[in-house]
């Protein structure tokens, strides 16, 4: 900070040149380094409220069955419902309540990681707050970002929220068994996703039944850890 010039006897310009989003990005880099140093694969799971983020994490944990070598940071506004659901699969879980904030940020992840014992952990799932807008602006330091979208959100979710789909490394379309009842075309959602993100694998799943879960595991690069 410096005072650059006087505009008359009393008025001054104070140069601040502060990038408000930079702090989160630098903390995200520190988180990434921490994960790399501990050889942990960190995965940020994003999606709407009710899209099936927790169910997907549970389904993956059930499939890979590595117990406490998997850890989960469950982000939510105020409840511990998700943490309790995930605990049943044997992973280490920490619930992060954001109060009223609409997204997790790198600082909250830094704090959570401190309170979570990570020795022996191979993979860390970070379940973001249910929201398709704000988490896109706040990287957490995860190696991969997965977006879950479900057919029950209707046919326009991808078109309305292109940003978060652009950021994704993997896109999972959940509740595929309900597509016909919802009159939603999975192939249309896939082509909407391809338009903003031609590279991310688009995988149709039914998290409750386990359909498509092996493909998600493969796309996240989890196989090499097992």
């Amino acid at each position: 900070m410096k005072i650059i010039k006087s505009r008359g006897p009393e008025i001054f310009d104070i140069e601040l040149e502060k990038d408000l989003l930079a702090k989160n990005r630098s903390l995200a880099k520190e988180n990434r380094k921490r994960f790399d140093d501990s050889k942990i694969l960190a995965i940020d799971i994003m999606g709407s409220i009710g899209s099936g983020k927790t169910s997907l994490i549970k389904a993956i944990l059930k499939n890979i069955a590595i117990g406490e070598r998997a850890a989960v940071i469950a982000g939510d506004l105020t409840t511990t419902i998700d943490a309790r659901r995930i605990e049943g699969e044997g992973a280490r879980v920490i619930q992060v309540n954001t109060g009223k904030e609409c997204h997790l940020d790198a600082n909250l992840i830094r704090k959570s990681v401190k309170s979570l014992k990570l020795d022996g952990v191979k993979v860390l799932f970070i379940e973001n707050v249910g929201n398709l807008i704000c988490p896109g602006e706040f990287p957490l330091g995860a190696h991969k970002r997965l977006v879950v979208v479900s057919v029950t959100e209707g046919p326009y979710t991808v078109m309305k929220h292109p940003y978060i789909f652009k950021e994704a490394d993997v896109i999972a379309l959940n509740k595929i068994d309900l597509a016909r009842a919802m009159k939603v075309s999975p192939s249309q959602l896939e082509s909407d996703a391809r338009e903003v993100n031609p590279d991310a694998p688009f995988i149709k799943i039914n998290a409750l039944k386990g359909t498509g879960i092996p493909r998600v595991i493969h796309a996240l690069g989890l196989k090499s850890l097992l």
Partner: protein
Amino acid sequence: MHEALCQSAIPMHEYSISSEIVKTVLGAAAENETRKVLSVQLEIGELALLNAEQVSFWIHELFKGTIAEGSKVKIKKVRARIRCGSCGYHGGMKSDRADSFQHLVPQSCPKCGSFQIKIEKGRECFLRRIQAVK
């Protein structure tokens, strides 16, 4: 057993960014022993997920009761710049389609259509300077 970490805040990330701006402005004003803050200059990239009107609203609200109350909040929009890794195009984004995602997420090079593009500018939120009275 799981543990819980709590963080209290108010919804929308415009609020968190605005609080950070207000904290920085009041800190700098105090450090320089100013009596009143007259204006605040911000730059927000057109691709940043921040609504300038909401940011301005929250800053005005949070300034109330401080030496910055009533100060002008000037927000300059920063145009996005992209660089194409295939054809070398360097410049702004443009699209012929009215319903295109291009305004929010530039997905391909406007010249050659390649997806190998890098956003160089347009995602920032800068607090440039404040004007204050000694």
